[in-house]
């Protein structure tokens, strides 16, 4: 059994493209849920909008990637407005219902046969949609460190991805410690109290929904550019729930929560999977087949997360005193 391989894979994935995508989605949820108290259960819809904007505009319409990115961001704002205008005046649960439904509507729409010419149906869109980005790659060789192995392409995506995360984390930090952040946190605690002090809560909630959605969309764009392929069944509601898991794991309403959460989540998931794989290959585990690993690693990681929620409910970074106030 090759333990260093298991470890290497886990570290590579924990810092890799997928972790970056989920980290961006969770950063969006942090703004929406962690700070403003908005229950967006359709974050994957924002990611899908980003990914499909790239796929459709670059591959189906043959336009430039640099045109596709701003169009994707505009589409994301439009989606947030469509979701927010009818629901943000209502109780929090309505946004939750509408967003989860919308995320499925979008997935089913892009995989429909009727729109196959544009969205590619169940096969999605495949092609060199991120080429314009990869052409800028300054790296000349793959990276092959003891615990870190990336192709030249992945290395470039990872570099830009973590840089974006650093910039957005700084922006989030500035936002949430400003008077603007105070208002949205107030809305999370009690919207009517904030309204009674002359703040237009509706506008703040809309701003948070748009900003959080944009972060999810950037995640989707990274997805399309890095994987050069978008498929409808990548954008199932699970993505949203993993993002929430990551957020809670790191600690909601903590600026660094999503980063820590994403790294730990993907490390654990890959580690458990690879570890079981090696155990089976070495003949140490005989009652499992390699095909069982997929579900079992989720069961084990799920148990671990339950343990975390029981023994450290505030997440890695949270403040336990703050959480205790909820019980009142």
């Amino acid at each position: 059994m090759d333990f260093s391989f298991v470890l290497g894979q886990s570290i590579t994935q924990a810092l890799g493209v997928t972790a970056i995508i989920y980290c961006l989605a969770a950063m969006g949820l942090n703004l929406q849920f962690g700070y403003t108290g908005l229950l967006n259960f359709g974050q994957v819809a924002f990611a899908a909008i980003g990914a499909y904007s790239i796929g459709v505009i670059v591959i189906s319409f043959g336009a430039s990637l640099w045109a596709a990115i701003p169009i994707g961001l505009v589409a994301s704002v439009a989606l947030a407005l469509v979701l927010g205008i009818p629901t943000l005046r209502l109780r929090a649960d309505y946004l939750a219902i509408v967003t989860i439904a919308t995320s499925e509507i979008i997935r089913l729409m892009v995989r429909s046969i009727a729109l196959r010419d544009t969205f590619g149906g169940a096969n999605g869109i495949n092609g060199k949609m991120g080429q314009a980005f990869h052409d800028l790659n300054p790296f000349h060789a793959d990276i092959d460190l003891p615990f870190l192995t990336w192709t030249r392409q992945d290395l470039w995506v990872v570099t830009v991805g973590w840089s974006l995360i650093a910039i957005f984390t700084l922006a989030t930090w500035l936002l949430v410690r400003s008077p603007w952040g105070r208002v949205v946190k107030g809305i999370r605690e009690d919207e009517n109290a904030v309204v009674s002090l002359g703040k237009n809560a509706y506008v703040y909630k809309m701003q948070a929904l748009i900003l959080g959605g944009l972060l999810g969309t950037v995640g989707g764009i990274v997805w399309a550019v890095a994987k050069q392929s978008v498929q409808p069944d990548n954008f199932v509601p699970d993505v949203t729930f993993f993002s929430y898991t990551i957020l809670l794991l790191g600690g909601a309403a903590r600026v660094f929560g999503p980063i820590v959460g994403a790294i730990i989540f993907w490390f654990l998931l890959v580690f458990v999977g690879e570890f079981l794989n090696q155990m089976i290959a070495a003949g140490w585990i005989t009652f499992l087949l390699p095909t069982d690993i997929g579900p079992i690693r989720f069961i084990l990681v799920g148990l671990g997360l339950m343990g975390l929620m029981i023994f450290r409910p505030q997440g890695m970074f949270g403040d336990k005193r703050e959480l205790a106030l909820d019980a009142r």
Partner: protein
Amino acid sequence: MPANGQRALAAQSALATVPRVPGASKPDPILVASSIVRRFGGLSAVDVAHVEVQRGSITALIGPNGAGKTTFFNLLTGFDAPDEGAWSFNGRSMGRLSPYRVARLGMVRTFQLTKALNRLRVIDNMLLGAKGQRGERLWASIFPFLWRGQEAKNTERADVLLKRFSLDAKRGDFAGSLSGGQRKLLEMARALMSEPELIMLDEPMAGVNPALTQSLLQHIKMIREEGSTVLFVEHDMDMVHDISDWVIVMAQGKIIAEGPPGDVMKNPEVIDAYLGSRHEKALTESGESLTTGENK
């Protein structure tokens, strides 16, 4: 009780000549409401023909449970919409205005169930009350140099208020860790941060221990001395008697009596509304029947 200040005397002398009838017009009303009706199904929760609130006074809105006092508050502050009626604040018509606009115009309310923002620190609760903050705009918020100066001024003002309300020791604590009475104080102080012309307090004394009640009363009087108008809902007749310049009595959605506290509490209609028609005692200290009621 310390002596009432100048504003108290001014308010009381201005109100001295006002007839003691429901809907009486005041010499200098800050708030005027006419034919306000709010129905819940078949029930008219509020059906107010006419009411005025004198500027610079402490006016109490009293009435038995279910009289429609809080509903009336909600209507006036935009948190609920009436089926009929119009009202004006400082001469400006207020119908159908969103609650945040009502607050911006200088009519700020508190809530019966205190709304301290639990996971915000006490000082942040206070700062949230300040009006016209540049840093509350999304684009400006990420450039601290645009709002830092204003924030420092607001913080200074907040600290003065916290000291006055004896919450300065709790400045850095989460509001959720305060006691019930402290939360009432915080909510009132926070409302004052917005420098309201009319502050509407929904049962400021409910659930507050007697020692703190005295200091709350002093704070309310102080608000008047600083030139604001206070309209408050209360059950406890002794409190009302102690601090209000004028009392408006609601029962079953209607205004049934108005007048200075002494007069109102002797009014047989008011005693009927509170205690049923066979009761003969007065409603204040001598007749303790009421204070043993819902708040104690």
